């Protein structure tokens, strides 16, 4: 079986979204609804807002908070997951607490977090980190636990030292699950980024959207929502590249079939 070339794949993925945008653009041109302005107006607002000062005022702070929040979640999640996996007794004790904190919707913790960390960007970062840490932590823990016992046995019998054990055995072995956790955390992070900005903030895309809505700047509001959709999509796409690199040792499905067929 031949793989579809990159270009063909791109065309195959893009033709429908492009068609929808074109239909939307011309179909909405005569719209008189105050809630659903023509796409041409939304697009003009989009260009004015996001290719102008709005980029520095709103997009940069939002994405900076997201990046810091996810970075904290990644370090804490992988680190704590690793430690808990290496000390099973601690993991047993911690388990009910983990399940409890994970079950709290991060948005519900926002008021408390903003009291502790203040309403500056530290509060946003803390909120994103709090929401995004759980999938990474639990997937790291579970990923290390589910490493094949015979691999752990080999590591033990060759007396592999702890730093090597962590970097060459435990983390790569858990990586297929850690990457799943990160993907979930990415989505949660974007939700909390927007939510926390809507709740209390003086900048950011979420703040922009809520202010636009409250001042009946409907085209601006839609332009913010559109931007958030694009950001989410691009993040996911970019993360796919990172994920493929992290798991570059895994056989692609068609390669594995070819080897088995030998």
């Amino acid at each position, binding site marked *: 079986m031949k793989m579809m070339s990159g270009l063909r794949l791109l065309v195959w993925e893009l033709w429908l979204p492009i068609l929808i945008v074109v239909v939307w653009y011309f179909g909405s041109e005569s719209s008189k609804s105050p809630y659903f302005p023509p796409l041409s107006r939304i697009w003009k607002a989009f260009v004015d807002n996001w290719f102008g000062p709005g980029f520095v005022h709103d997009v940069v702070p939002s994405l900076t908070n997201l990046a810091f929040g996810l970075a904290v979640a990644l370090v804490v999640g992988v680190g704590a997951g690793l430690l808990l996996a290496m000390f099973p007794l601690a993991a047993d004790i911690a388990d009910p607490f983990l399940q409890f904190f994970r079950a709290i919707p991060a948005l519900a913790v926002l008021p408390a977090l903003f009291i502790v960390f203040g309403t500056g960007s530290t509060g946003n970062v803390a909120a994103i980190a709090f929401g995004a840490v759980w999938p990474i932590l639990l997937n790291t823990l579970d990923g290390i636990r589910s490493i094949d016992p015979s691999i752990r046995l080999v590591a033990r019998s060759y007396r592999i030292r702890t730093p090597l054990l962590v970097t*060459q055995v435990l983390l790569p*072995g858990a990586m297929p699950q850690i990457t799943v956790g990160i993907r979930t955390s990415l989505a949660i992070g974007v939700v909390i980024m927007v939510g926390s900005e809507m709740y209390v903030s003086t900048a950011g895309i979420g703040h922009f959207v809520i202010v636009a809505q409250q001042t009946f700047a409907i085209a601006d509001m839609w332009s913010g929502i559109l931007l958030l959709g694009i950001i989410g999509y691009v993040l996911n796409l970019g993360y796919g590249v990172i994920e493929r690199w992290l798991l570059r040792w895994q*056989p692609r499905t068609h390669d594995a079939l070819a080897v088995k067929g030998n």
Partner: protein
Amino acid sequence: MSSTESAASIPAVELSGLGVTYGGPTGREVLRGIDLSVAPGEIVCIVGHSGIGKSTLIRCIAGLQKPTTGEVRIAGIAIDAPPATLALVSQDYGRPLMPWLRVGENVRLPLRGNGLARKVQNERVSDALAVVGLGGAARSYPWQLSGGMQQRVAIARALAYRPQVLLMDEPFASVDAQTRAELEDLLLTLQRDLGITVLLVTHDVDESVYLSDRVVVLGGTPALMQDIVDVPLTGARDQLTTKADPLFIECRTRVLSAIQQSKVVAPVS
């Protein structure tokens, strides 16, 4: 050569009164009173029915499991953890390789973090892979190799580690007959060239006689040492002529009858 002689007087592996019971004093007794002394450079096979405790025995010798009674001495020193001079090749090929490390890195991993220069590591890795006939496979991932080739990588990893004692738990159980014969001969060649001590578990009687200086037969519940069969075959062994040698057939018959007797007289505790 007096130093060699005095070293030779200390057994490479010594088991005394080794017993294993799972699940406390009232639990299931698997092994009882195993006494065995393996001289340096000797190759000894352990045979017995499947499930009799052969793998348990090998895990005890590898320092991966604590025996309930008795002790294991490697080069005269009682062990309670995996000793540095010992390497284990376990039975399920493929899985014990780290799928995320290329073949060369799999072989290198046990050599890292021991203060061994990178250059020396590289030499040992490429030497070991060349010896098992996989000189060109260092950059491949394990899944790109066949089962037999993956088992060769596991053997190469053990060789690169330069153990004094090589433990093998049914190392050729999952490969096809042709590969199996090749790996058996490879093991004999390596063992002769490097002078390492080999303890190998198998359920294949022909294999045990073909490879061994001595065959240890385990039998009964709990498993006791039923018999130790000396295999006085001299000179290089060969898949065709050795296996047709009357001496080979005699040894094989002795091992087989010991296994069958162990089944009949299995004591019930």
